């Protein structure tokens, strides 16, 4: 019998956990400054963190085979909840996203971020890659249904993330380039149709992104002020708690979607390099885990989770720096907010499960 390391017995991947905790620390520091030095915010963040880490450890202990077995049920359950939201959902900020369960409100679309890559990885790992055209088409249907439901709420940001997490799995599974190109063309040609289906506020955001000066009082204001915050941070930053843009409250959504601007203003390019370095480290570790996995399921699901995490970061950074339109996506592990924290940690739990169960399976 091989010697099993302590971390593997407890199903913890130490490098991944290290990276996560380092990011959480940065999150605490930034949130304290962005939130006007409110300890209340830190306490709430701690509660979120404890719950999310607990979830991560619990999932990490689950053998991937069990995850695979449960994925269809999980997917269908999440789909059902999304349909329920359509009819009974509570409205917040103009969109119907929330489902109330007594005192707890949650967004079923968050569950779908995990359920979709799980079910597609399960489906495509049943046989060796590359998948047949029928399999690809069916997988696309698996993706399309929840994405359309979420887009209808309307929550374009989350719909995008869900689509990417599912599509990433399809891509990794070896979907042929021809098909990929075909669908790419299809997507491009359907752009005008999607534009027509978009809500007015969504169109406005896209137009504002293309020309921020057009709406300097509204969304354009966010982008302009965010760029001032980032740019004025310079190489070394203004120092912790010294950001003027954020503290004079020029910056909108400082603790949530635009927290990256606060970080840039106070810690400068050097801080950004550290932050991005940590993110890249976690992504690299996640992809390494996927490659190392001896099960096709693990490879597919692991990469899907990592891809979704990456898109989270990229879309948020792109939005805050003014390279992408404003969509409400938080910066993982830094922004304030319980639901996204739970989903992200659950994803890391899946990665740890894939990594720490492989030897036991192979024996």
């Amino acid at each position, binding site marked *: 019998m091989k010697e099993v390391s302590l971390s593997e017995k407890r199903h913890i991947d130490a490098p991944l956990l290290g990276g996560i905790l380092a990011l959480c620390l940065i999150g605490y520091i930034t949130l304290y400054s962005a939130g006007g030095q409110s300890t209340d915010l830190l306490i709430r963040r701690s509660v979120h963190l404890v719950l999310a880490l607990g979830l991560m450890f619990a999932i990490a202990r689950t053998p991937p085979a069990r995850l695979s077995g449960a994925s269809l049920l999980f997917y269908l359950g999440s789909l059902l909840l999304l349909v329920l939201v359509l009819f009974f959902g509570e409205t917040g900020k103009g969109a119907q996203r929330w489902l109330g369960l007594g005192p707890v409100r949650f967004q079923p679309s968050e569950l779908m971020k995990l359920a979709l890559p799980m079910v597609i990885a399960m489906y495509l790992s049943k046989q060796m890659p590359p998948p047949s055209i029928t399999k690809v088409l069916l997988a696309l249907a698996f993706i399309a249904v929840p994405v359309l439901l979420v887009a209808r709420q309307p929550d374009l940001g989350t719909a995008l993330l869900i689509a990417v997490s599912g599509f990433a799995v399809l891509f990794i599974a070896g979907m042929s380039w021809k098909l990929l190109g075909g669908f790419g063309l299809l997507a491009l040609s359907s752009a005008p149709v999607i534009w027509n289906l978009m809500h007015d506020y969504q169109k406005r955001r896209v137009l504002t992104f293309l020309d921020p000066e057009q709406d300097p009082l509204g969304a354009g204001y966010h982008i302009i002020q965010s*760029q001032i915050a980032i*740019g004025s941070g310079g190489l070394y930053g203004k120092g912790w708690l010294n950001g003027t843009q954020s503290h004079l*409250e020029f910056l909108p959504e400082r603790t949530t979607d635009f927290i990256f601007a606060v970080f840039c203003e106070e810690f400068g390019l050097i801080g950004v390099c550290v932050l*991005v370095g940590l993110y890249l480290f976690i992504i690299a570790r996640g992809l390494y885990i996927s490659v190392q996995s001896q099960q096709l399921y693990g490879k597919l699901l692991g990469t899907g989770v990592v891809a979704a995490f990456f898109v989270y970061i990229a879309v948020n*950074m*792109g939005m805050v720096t003014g390279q992408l339109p404003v969509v409400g996506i938080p910066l993982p592990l830094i922004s304030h907010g319980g639901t996204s924290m739970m989903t992200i940690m659950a994803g890391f739990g899946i990665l740890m499960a894939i990594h720490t169960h492989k030897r036991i399976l192979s024996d």
Partner: protein
Amino acid sequence: MTTLSAKIRTDRRIDLVHRRIYLTATLCLLVMLTLMAQVLHLQVVRHEHFTALSMDNQIKIVPVAPPRGRIFSSDKVLLADNRLSFSLELVPERVTDEPALLAQLSRFVAISAQDIERFRELRKRRRRFEGVPLKSHLDDEEVAVISANRHLLPGVDVVASSGRYYPLAQSLAHTVGYVGMIDAAEFEKLNKAIYRGTNHIGKAGIEKAYENLLHGSPGYEQVEVNAQGRVIRNIYRKPPEPSKDLYLTVDASLQLLAVQALNDRRGAIVALDNRSGAVLVAASTPGFDSNLFVGGIDSKVYAQLLRSKGTPLLNRTLQGTYPPGSTIKPMLALGGLQQGLRTPEATTWCPGWFSLKGSSRRYRCWKREGHGHLDAANAIFQSCDVYFYVLARDLGIDTLHDTLTDFGFGQPTGIDIGGERAGLIPSTRWKREALGQPWYPGETMSVGIGQGATLVTPMQLATATAVIANRGLQVRPYLLSEARDSVTGQSVIRAAAGPGREVVFAEPEYWDRIIHSMQEVVHGERGTARASGAGANYRFAGKTGTAQVISIAQGEEYDEDKVPEELQDHALFIAFAPVEAPEIALAVIVENGGGGSRTAAPIARELLDHYFHKKRRERHG
């Protein structure tokens, strides 16, 4: 061998997956590099530019609200104007110690707890650098004191803005309405981009109904401010999109006369151009001073207005519901002709009372000794009750209901301002649904003379009168005649005057007969309002009405002197003129005014005289 080749094939396929994973990694890295390039660009290349913006100067964007559109009457009298007024604003980001500042401020101007409460409410919805109004309508002295002590009051601004002013408030408050501070519920529904820099919104009447025309769209100024937030220079200014001036159909001189004629009594007068539905007069008394609402009404004053016995806040023209009394008799007579239940010549015997078969209850005519034999025309101009008791019995409650509904009763008229009530025309269905009771035949009699549960608004009464004047053509009353661009004066919207929706069917000859009998009401020897018709140099048609507020018990006598004022009869009168080619239809109601012929008809005559006099004068130069 087979297992080995299978393993090789499997490995190839796994290699494909691995290649894709490496590709994903490369893609991630490339995207991240692009993002970092932008951060680098912002933080290193353009660092100085952004530092300048953030440290020394800050660019602020200040919304510039458009001046609200004015409101004029049809005779070009200003009904709602903008006046320069000064308000006290605090800029939250510049206030460090709010309680201390408020204490300091209250040494110079009176600040009520209500002001502070509203300020705190408003503050939540503004950006921290935007001024939040604390007190509006400062007087000159207050402005001077605050300006002189400004160094003691950081974060305090005296802001000049145009405030709403209603020159004819007491006479037209209900129709023109008023603006007030935007409240939390309204804010939720607003298009925030358009309402930046605006504190007021239309709350009632025309001000509310045509908010979108009156408001316009804001412009903005891009300004540079120093670290304290004072404006250093203007960078760019986009002027606001001008609002629209509104021209109403209301004739101010006629309206003022109507209010004056009501003479502080509770009542309402509506006059329409029966051809188009243009509302010439919409008077509801007592009025109130709508200027009180503009700066946020004092809660004590408001409570006083609410409690006042005259209910001045009630717009009686649209929200006052009254039993129509005998004014609906012409419509019911038409219904009887239309249904073939009566011929114009058919007479009914009036002995002074009427009883249903098998009932001892006597329904009395207002004339105790009775009218004798009467045909439809006589029954109208003498306003005989018995004729209409018998007609009501023969029609039955549901046909009676349908007849009155054809004239627009029991439903909103569809006028272009809100708050209108539908009134009520009873029917078996209504009684079953609302009260869960069957209809008793005895109840039909009182509906036949416009009593019982029957309720109409003055606006409905005027539009129904217009239907008769038009010989069946219905019109929808409207108040907005025209909207003009407040800068260029160009006409933007013009009311679509013209024929109305629906024709009430009746033989053309029947209309002539009924209109003739209404003419007899004022010009005939025995007409109930002959005193009001005397000496007129035009011919008009009318109908009096006296609506009971309390029911008089069987065998009891109604004695005006013994009944307290609020239980006295309502006085009603409807009229249109000139009979040959009607152009004005009106309804007058004086609450507890006694008889319609004595109180309401003279007011109508006065208004018609003025209308035709003014018209003649205009024609002759």
